């Protein structure tokens, strides 16, 4: 419990620092919101007046405090470009991105763990050797390319889904999931390959350890020793890696949303950066950072549960 509390404290500090950075980044970038909003036709007087209205002339610390305070109470500000509350814009786009990333994580877990165990159990066998080569190939293909390939093969050729014809989850949940499956697999595939490789080598390392020899001497077969003894201990690095992957998938998701024309956070982010729509960008950056930090927090807790010695480290 003390361990969890400590981790939770670090989590809050991290988020605070991220929010500070996200805010300061836009103070450093040249150009300011008032000029952008007025366009090239604004007179210096108009710019000055608008800056005053938007509160941009106040000290930075006060601006930050103001922004963070209202952010925490659910008010993320107003988009400069659309003149719309940021939280409404995000609420509209968030479900697709959440579905994409969660589906990606789910695929990573359900594919890589069984395959990793299988290749370790049959290390040196035909399947293992084929998988080793296949892994190497999959690892080196970027998600964008996999996405384009999937669009072509499953969308255009096999007609499993219609590329570009996004179906919202509240319209038809089944079609939504079928559509989301391919982008999710695109972002998961290289991560699956890496996790398989990691789990395989981690398992084989564990199988060489002395406590496995002890397990054999107690009457375990190679299979039961692997499943009941080695697996649990070999999962610690895998869990940590999966947490990193879950964070990476968000980044990959931003690009994949473009490929599959999914109206998600990623597309909104790219559009907002292009138009200097700071309130939107800040909010999205903070949401993405929260995801990364929370996933890592969960991974820490899980590692500690799997291997109680982690607590000491």
């Amino acid at each position, binding site marked *: 419990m003390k361990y969890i509390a400590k981790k939770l404290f670090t989590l809050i500090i991290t988020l605070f620092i991220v929010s500070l950075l996200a805010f300061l980044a836009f103070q450093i970038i040249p150009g300011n919101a008032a000029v952008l909003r007025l366009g090239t036709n604004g007179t210096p007087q108009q710019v000055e007046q608008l800056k005053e209205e938007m509160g941009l002339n106040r000290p930075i610390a006060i601006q930050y405090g103001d922004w963070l305070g209202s952010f925490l109470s659910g008010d993320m500000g107003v988009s400069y470009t659309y003149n719309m509350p940021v939280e409404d814009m995000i609420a509209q786009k968030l479900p697709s991105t959440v579905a994409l990333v969660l589906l990606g994580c789910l695929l990573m877990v359900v594919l890589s763990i069984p395959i990793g165990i299988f290749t370790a159990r049959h290390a*040196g066998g035909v399947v293992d050797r084929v998988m080793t080569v296949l892994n190497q190939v999959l690892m080196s293909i970027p998600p964008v390319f996999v996405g384009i390939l999937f669009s072509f093969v499953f969308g255009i050729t096999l007609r499993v889904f219609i590329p570009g014809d996004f179906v919202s989850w509240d319209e038809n949940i089944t079609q939504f999931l079928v559509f989301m499956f391919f982008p999710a697999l695109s972002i998961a595939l290289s991560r699956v390959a890496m996790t398989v490789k990691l789990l395989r080598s981690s398992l084989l390392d564990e199988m060489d*350890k*002395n*406590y496995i*020899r*002890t*397990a*054999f*001497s*107690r*009457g*375990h077969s190679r299979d*039961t020793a692997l499943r009941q*003894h080695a697996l*649990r*201990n070999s999962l610690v690095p895998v869990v940590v890696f999966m947490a990193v992957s879950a964070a990476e998938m968000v980044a990959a998701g931003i690009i994949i949303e473009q490929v599959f024309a999914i109206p998600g956070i990623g597309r909104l982010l790219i559009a907002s950066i292009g138009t200097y729509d700071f309130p939107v960008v800040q909010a999205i950056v903070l949401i993405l950072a929260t995801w990364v930090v929370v996933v890592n927090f969960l991974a820490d807790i899980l590692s500690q549960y*799997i*291997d*109680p*010695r982690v607590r*000491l480290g």
Partner: protein
Amino acid sequence: MTKAPILEVRGLDSYYRQGTDTLWRKKRTQVLKKVSFTLGQGEVLGIVGESGSGKSTLAKVILGISRDYEGEIVHHSMRPQMVFQDPYASLNPAFTVGRIVEEPLIIYGKYDVHERKRRVIDMLEDVGLGEEFLVCRPHELSGGQRQRVSIATAMIVRPKLVILDEAVSALDVTIQDQILDLLVRLKKENNLSYLFISHDLNVVYQCCDRVMVMKSGEVVEENTVDGIFDAPQHPYTKKLLLAAE
């Protein structure tokens, strides 16, 4: 040999695969060469020799952990067990002591949960550990305590033959004595036979009935403890004795 045998080994050759020879095949090296001996009931047979002389391989082959052998191994007892050298590495770090000691019972599948738990508590007590150790994990214990856990785990299925592979070598001298006393007591109480593998001749002298000296996979000399210590025949045995003084 008047006692009934509990283990007979005849003409045992064993091999070991390591490194790569050709593209996929591993190099096969012979470790044991024509090893033969008989272990009687209630007897403690010491196996000594330098590292790499094949002592541990012999233990692994006898227990079936290593299967690459030719020759004959006849067990006259059920469920032979083994206690390993490094009491830290040989216990699964993720398991509690209770789970570790219970494991052989689960594998042999003879008892229900309550009976298993009762036996685990009895066994721990027998090796000098209280019930409070049930929920501890290996990293929370001292070396001596860990070795007691290893011994409890080996003894819980009531074996007649226990192989002790450098079982006390990693411990400091006072703890070594305590563990040896424990092993001797358990042997008397349960009429056990030990195959006592060690490189430490002083320990072997303390607890063995007979000694077998091994060098590069071969048995070079076999005799009673007194025979070996008073009148060593083979030059290698003499060298070992000289080094131990």
